[in-house]
């Protein structure tokens, strides 16, 4: 009730009926929208489907698997026909000798007569002693097993080079001479102690590899004089390279230093 209303009519502002009408109207509109939506949902197709296909899988039943039919083999087109020609007839059997009868006698074949040969005369052994061929001997009296490839005289003794592969040594003789002269040049003859090294010799072994570098240097036979041993080793160690190796393989070399102070 309004404090400012002047009449009883005016005092009754119909609040109750207005609210009721409004609620009823909203409820009707709302129910209408919901109902329309439910109706639509139930009776219209969903998005992206047509009513005819909904919920079905198309399948057609067949009675058998449709494999290609088997072609019959064509006889005329086969390269090697099935009907082969006949194999050649086996050679006719030779008529076998009849087995010997028990009454048969064995006759021996004739042996040819032996031919006589005259005895070969052998030379009589010499009555006097034969000279033995000269064997190369070192100053130390030791006998060499192989003829050396190169021998050079030094102030104190000799330097002897032997190529263990003789074929290589002959084929590349010029190279072996260069090697020998390089080593002899580098051999410091003042280094070995004269008294300890007198009449002794050292043999050093090494290989000249394909580039011409001496490798694998070792002493084969030590002399017993350490100074002579190291002078021999140093003569080879001083060399970086002997020049290009003409052989396609490494050349093994034995180099022997004899010390003999005159």
């Amino acid at each position, binding site marked *: 009730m309004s404090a400012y209303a002047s009449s009883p009519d005016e005092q009754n502002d119909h609040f109750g009926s207005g609210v009721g009408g409004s609620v009823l109207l909203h409820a009707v509109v709302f129910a209408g929208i919901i109902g329309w939506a439910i109706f639509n949902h139930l009776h219209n197709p969903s998005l992206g489907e047509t009513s005819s296909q909904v919920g079905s899988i198309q399948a057609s039943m067949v009675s058998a698997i449709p494999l290609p039919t088997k072609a019959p083999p064509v006889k005329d087109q086969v390269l090697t026909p099935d009907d082969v020609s006949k194999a050649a007839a086996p050679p006719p059997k030779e008529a076998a000798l009849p087995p010997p009868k028990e009454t048969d006698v064995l006759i021996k074949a004739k042996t040819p007569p032996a031919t006589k040969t005259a005895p070969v005369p052998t030379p009589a052994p010499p009555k006097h002693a034969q000279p033995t061929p000269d064997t190369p001997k070192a100053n130390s009296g030791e006998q060499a097993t192989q003829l050396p490839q190169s021998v050079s005289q030094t102030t104190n003794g000799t330097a002897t080079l032997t190529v263990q592969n003789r074929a290589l040594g002959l084929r590349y003789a010029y190279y072996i001479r260069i090697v020998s002269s390089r080593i002899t040049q580098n051999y410091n003859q003042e280094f070995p102690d004269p008294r300890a090294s007198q009449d002794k010799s050292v043999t050093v072994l090494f290989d000249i590899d394909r580039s011409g570098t001496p490798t694998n240097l070792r002493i084969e036979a030590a002399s017993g004089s350490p100074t002579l041993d190291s002078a021999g080793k140093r003569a080879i160690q001083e060399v970086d390279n002997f020049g*290009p190796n003409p052989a396609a393989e490494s050349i093994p070399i034995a180099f022997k230093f004899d010390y003999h102070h005159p």
Partner: protein
Amino acid sequence: MAALTLCLLGSPLLHAQDPIHLEATNSADRIRLAVANFKPQTGDANTGAYKQTFDTTLFSDLTSAGLFDVVSKDMLPQSTPGFPAEINLTQWSAAPSSAAMVAFGNLSTQGNHLVVSGFLDDTKNTQFPQVFAKQYNEEASEDNARQIAHRFADEIIFRLGGGVSGIAETKIYYVKILGPNKEIYEMDYDGANQHAITHLGTVSLSPRVSPDNSRIAFSTLGRDGFQLKMFSLLLNRPVNFNSAGGTNLSPAWSPSGQQLAFSSSRTGDPEIWISDPEGNIAHKITAFRGPDVSPTWNPKTGAQIAWISGRSGLPQLYIMDADGSGITRLTDGGYATSPSWSPNGQFITFAWDRKYGPGAPGGQDIYIMEIASKKWIQLTHDGGRCDFPSWSPDGRHIVYANSPDGKADHTRIMSMLADGTQKKALTGSGADMPNWSWK
């Protein structure tokens, strides 16, 4: 081989007071080599001219190699073999030629090309005489005939020299005196084919070629005094080298080609500096009162520098490590200049006036010193003033400048074997400061 000879003879014979005797044992070991005249296959006049050049060059290359006992051409047999089938080896191995090896071959011009076949035979090996055979095919010209002869000679030296390559294809760079100006010139190792490299119209000194033969470093007098310059032999023009103040002199390439040592007075006193080949990252490695000049690297290791220092009065020869440590003085007096280190790192050659000063007029001569023992040999005697020695890459030769009468403009370039023999002039007067290329 000469270096080895020296080393072999050096240890027992070169005591300080003893006279030097060189035994002739090694010359007897030299290979006796006969060089036949090559056989012309075609008869035209050009072939004859090329053949003449070829024969002369080959003979002089092998003679000056210092390795062989080359048979005089007068002693050769009359025949001229052109092919291995045509040679009668006993003719050559017999007296008077008595050759152990024969170099022979043939030469022809085919169209525009000069074709040379060269053979080397071992006369002592009758079964397998041939040492090697080579064929060369170049455009026909006088210069190429010489080049082919150089190459064939180098091949013979390589095969028979005991592992050291020949130098017939190397170059020598030097200073040509042209009135008031000095320019950098280039020539072949035998003095042929002399031609200018620079045309700067000023004074250029001390050319030094890089180890790969691509650049020359030298010092040039310009507006700012002497400055280092770099000339590219590939581009044929100067390339950049960053300069600094002061006087910059005497460049020296390290064997790697990555560093340049030189003398610079940018901080007041001439000291040895090291920079890269563009002149960057320069740093000083000597610090002592007195001039430090003329560095040269140890070409074998690249870890040591020899140089001339005046720290104790007169200039003396010193060596140090490349970082400036381990300084050792090698000469004990006199006036030493312009060192050059041998390729095997064992020796230094330098110019030395052993009796310098008033009342003791000495001559300036070329010396070799073995670094390990400080023993030295005098290589030139009474030939006038000698300076600027430079080793050849095979270590068997030394080139140097010589002035017979002591006058600067009469200086000429001479070469000799490293034992002081076979001296010969390569240029006329007016050439100075030679530098032998590294290869």
